[in-house]
Each structure stands twice: as C-alpha cells, then as structure tokens.
C-alpha cells in the first residue's frame, strides 16, 4: 500500500480567516500538530488543541517533523522474562494532521517514505505515515539559512504533497495532490474557496533566478570522482565534536540503535532510539574492531551518503537544503560552506 496515493492535482483557495477556522476545527476533531512559538522564541512542531496556539509567522521549525513518524524513542514491543510468548507488539498509532511543513521537509519525508519501503517494509514508520495528512506551506521566499533551490527541494512543490498552500499575498492558493488530501478537503469543503491556479513551474524558475548557492551536479561529480583534497576532510574531522546534533536535526537521517530495558512497572521494553553515524562506536563491533577507522572516514561517509549515494538510489538529494545543521554545530562545521568548497574542488 503506497504511503501517498497520488491524484491529479486539484486547485482551490482558502482565505486566512478560513484557514484559521479550518485548523481550529481539525484541532478539535483530530490530533493536529502545528508550529508553535515557545517562550524561548523557538518555533517547533507541537500538538495543538486550538488554532490560536499556532504560529503562522516563521521561517522554518527548529526540528523537522520526522519525530512524529520516527520518534526519538519508540517502544517496539514489551515483554516479561525470557519468554517470547510474552511479547506484545506496541505498533499502534492514531491519525494525525500536520500543518506547516515547508517544502524541503516534505521532500525529506518523501525520501524517508522510500527508504522505509526499500527491501523490508518498516511498519512502525509506514503505518504512522499512512494514517497522517500533511498540509504543507510553500515558502514565500528563500530564507537566509536555506538552499533548497540548489538541492531542488523547494521552495514550492510540483508534486508529492497531500495539500499544499501557496501564499497569494492576502490568502492562499490550495493544491490537493493525494487521496488523503482530497478526503480532508471534501470533509471541510465549505471553508475552501474557488479554484486559484498557480504556475508552480514559474514560481520555481523565479526562485532559481536568485543564484542557487551551489550546483548539485558538480558537487555530486566531485565527490564521486574523489576530487576533494584529503586535508579538507581532515579539517572537518578535527572540528567535529561527534555530538550528532546535525544528524538528529536532519530531516532525512534515520539511523537508530535498539535497547532492552526494564521498567518500574515490571514489564520490559525493546525500544529503538535515534543514533548517529557521528557517534564514535556507531560501527564498532563487540570484539572491538571498527571498520570506520577514524573521524575522517566517518565524516566522508556522511557527505557521500547524502550527496552521492542517496541521489543514486532515490533520485533526490539526501540534503534537502533546510540549513538546520548549520545553525547548531558546536564545532563551527558549516555544511553549506563545505558543499561549496566541494563544488570548487574540481
């Protein structure tokens, strides 16, 4: 069963007031996750029970929405003692509606959808995705930290969304791109206005006119042909503190570790939780052998994964250009600057 059943894109519109009313209604009837500004002025996704709690004025959220489908800590099953018969599968979930994802994050989610369906289907992720509807909001313009025009992941989406909102100044043009999106639209139809057609291709071309920060194809080739000086990798390796924050915030990072733990309630849990390839020990085996011999190889592996191998496998960049990793690095490793250096290496 596909995560998204695509349909021919249907156009509509919605006024700002009606969008507020729509989200307020959804928040009362379903679980709504939306951007919320907290007391530290960070905007992040949280469950809301009324539309007044939603922040509409933001560049992007501090975290991507991946945690709603791939939680930072997720109990896979519970058990007691050594008997496998005591195992209780904890893969259950409710329908959620997510509002306010940016185009780059929808693209990141699409990559994860493909990843979790390749080889073996990961039902813990996929069942949550199948039950969710995403209302994404195209960025009116490129934010300072972002580079989605270079990674071809925004600021507007051509396809692959449930419902996409595109600002028309006062109000929004609405595009419905999936069966799930259509069902939501039909349910709240009276809040939507007449068809407003938007030329997304034209919007993308306009966004691209502002010089993209790098040429992805060139970056891909230089990495694939190993044109980058070893000193470049050594420099990054010397500054990376292996905190893993860039990877936790990355919309397409999905590595996890698994632990068994007892709880005070007497039942034990096998859970998965986020892991990161920048944690030393990530590849170390029980007897001590580590095939990733040093930080340089560790760093290089991430760049190759996102900018070469994921493009080869998924035909879309593993970096979606959200720029979150650059905002948090304690070692002042700037992913974007480094990509530009890679581009110029050849």
């Amino acid at each position, binding site marked *: 069963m596909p995560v998204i059943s695509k349909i021919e894109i249907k156009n509509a519109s919605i006024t700002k007031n009606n969008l507020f009313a729509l989200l307020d209604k959804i928040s009362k009837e379903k679980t709504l996750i939306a951007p919320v500004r907290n007391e530290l002025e960070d905007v992040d996704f949280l469950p809301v029970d009324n539309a007044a709690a939603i922040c509409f004025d933001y560049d992007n959220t501090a975290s991507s929405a991946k945690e709603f489908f791939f939680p930072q800590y997720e109990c*896979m*099953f519970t*058990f007691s*003692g*050594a*008997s*496998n*018969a005591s*195992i209780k*599968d904890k893969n259950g979930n409710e329908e959620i509606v997510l509002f306010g994802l940016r185009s780059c994050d929808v693209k990141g989610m699409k990559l994860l959808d493909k*990843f*979790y369906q*390749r*080889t*073996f*289907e*990961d*039902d*813990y992720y996929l069942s949550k995705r199948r039950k969710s509807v995403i209302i994404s909001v195209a960025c009116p313009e490129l934010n300072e930290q972002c580079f989605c025009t270079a990674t071809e992941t925004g600021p507007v989406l051509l396809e692959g969304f449930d419902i996409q909102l595109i600002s028309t100044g006062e109000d929004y043009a609405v595009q419905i791109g999936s069966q799930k999106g259509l069902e939501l639209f039909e349910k709240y139809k009276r809040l939507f206005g007449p068809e407003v057609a938007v030329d997304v291709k034209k919007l993308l071309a306009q966004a691209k006119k502002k010089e993209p920060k790098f040429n992805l194809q060139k970056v891909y080739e230089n990495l694939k042909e190993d044109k980058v000086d070893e000193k470049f990798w050594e420099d990054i390796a010397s500054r990376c503190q292996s905190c893993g924050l860039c990877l936790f915030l990355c919309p397409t990072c*999905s*590595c*996890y*570790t*698994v*632990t*068994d733990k*007892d709880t005070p309630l007497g039942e*034990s849990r*096998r859970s*998965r939780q986020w*892991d990161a*390839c920048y944690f030393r020990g*990530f*590849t*170390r*085996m*029980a*007897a001590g*052998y580590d*095939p990733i011999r040093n930080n340089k190889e560790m760093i290089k*592996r991430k760049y*190759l*994964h996102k900018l*070469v*191998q994921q493009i*080869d*496998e998924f035909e879309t960049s593993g970096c979606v250009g959200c720029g979150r990793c650059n905002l948090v690095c304690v070692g002042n490793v700037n992913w974007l600057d480094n990509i530009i250096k890679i581009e110029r290496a050849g």
Partner: protein
Amino acid sequence: MFNSKLYIPRAAVIENVEELTYDTKLYRLRFKNHKSDSNENDYKPGQFVQVSILGAGEAPISICSSPTEKGYFELCARDVGLVTGALHKLKIGDELGIRGPYGNSFPIEEFGGQDIVFIGGGIGLAPLRSAINFALDSRASYGEIIILYGARTKEDIVFADELDEWNRQKKVKVFTTIDNPQKGWTGHVGVVTTLLDKIKHKFKAKAFVCGPAIMIHFTIKGLLDAGWAEENIITTLERHMKCGVGKCGHCYIGGKYVCTDGPVFTYAQLNSLAIEV
C-alpha cells in the same frame, strides 16, 4: 522468513550446546512452534539471523549448518559482547528469539562442476562450514575442494573433528595451521596465508574467504598475487548491526547495507564500492 513480523523474534529452543573452544559454543536450535511455510532449514549458506535474547538485545550471527540438514539449524558464537555473553549462559531447553534469515548468500550452487577453495580464520570457519557441508552433501556436483584453516592457537581451533572428517573424504584436502609453535602441535605453523602455497595451482577455482578483517585483507592480497581474478574471490563482511533489514544504518558502507546487499561480496564488488578490506 522465520518470523512473520519484521521486528518480532520467533521463539526457538536450544536442543544442544557443544563447547567448541574455551570461548566458543555451537548451538543447535529448533523452533518452538511450527508453521507450514517456514522451517528450520529454510535458508541458504552464508545467510545470518538476528539472535534475540530478551533483556540483553540482538546480534547478527551466521547460520553455520547447511540447509541440507533438516529439522534444526546451528549457530556458532564466541563470547565477546552483551548478547553473545547472555547466549553463553543459556542451556539446553532454554529459549531464545530468532529473526531472519537475512542477507544474500554464498553463490555455491552456481559453481557446480568447479574446484572450490575455502579459507577460514578463527571463528570465520563457521559461515564457511554451511557452504562446505552444503557442497559435500551433493559431492558429485563439485570438483576438488580444498580447505585452508588458521587459528591463533590449537585451543582456538573450531570444528576440529569436522576438519578431520572432511579431510578423510575423497577429493577434499584440509590444511590447518596455528600462528605460533606450540607444545603438542605437529602440524603447520604460521598465519593462514602461509598455506596459500598449497593452492597456488588452483588459481582458476572459486575462493571463499572468511575470518577477522586483517586475515581477509592479507588472504585476498595473497590470492591476487597468485593470479586469482577479483570475481573469483568471495568473502563475507562482518559489521555492527541492530536491525538486519537495512534500516538502522550501522552496517552502511559505500552506499550499500551489508545486512541486505551483503554480507557476501566478491572482491570485484568491494573494489567497485571502494570498500577496503
């Protein structure tokens, strides 16, 4: 698949435990409940399972029996980590969990009629044993079989009886070596690569190599020097794994997941992926 849900292990019972060395045991397993579509011998040589010990966790372990043996499968484990440590405490009749079988397999069936060389180091003989017994169970289908096996000391030799038994079979030769001279050892001394002389005339044979990383590295180098083609050298990689199904990311290397794209690779493949061994 042995298990019907991706992450939920299937209960298996330990039918027999055999101490192979001071730190290595051989476990014979049978599933607790049987279903028509998946039996104990529903795997291929070279595949592995995720062994689950509730409370301790999971670890990938190669199946070391041959699917030609019905009604059970065998795992060989050295006591080196959290899960294998917990496994070593289990006794006959105890229960553990199994997911799998996972990974690709040794392409042994494709090599009918040909000479085959197996080169194992330490516990690396375990996955090879599956392919060796598979080949020997249809003996007429293969040419000469040569097994080179190296262990650190004579106490580290696994499957000692079987090495002797294989050596007694027609058109099978087994050469065993230990790293350093030892009292009571009259056989060959030196690392396993010092045995490569015994097979240099067989450079057209398929060579299956498994052992510690450093052993694989020097064995492949030796084979290449002796004229082996990169496509004819087949090895199996060991990696840290949590899921076994291409999701957790730990075994990811060169754009491949060792658990689903491997663990068996030809040297030609490893080279094209820039994976160093």
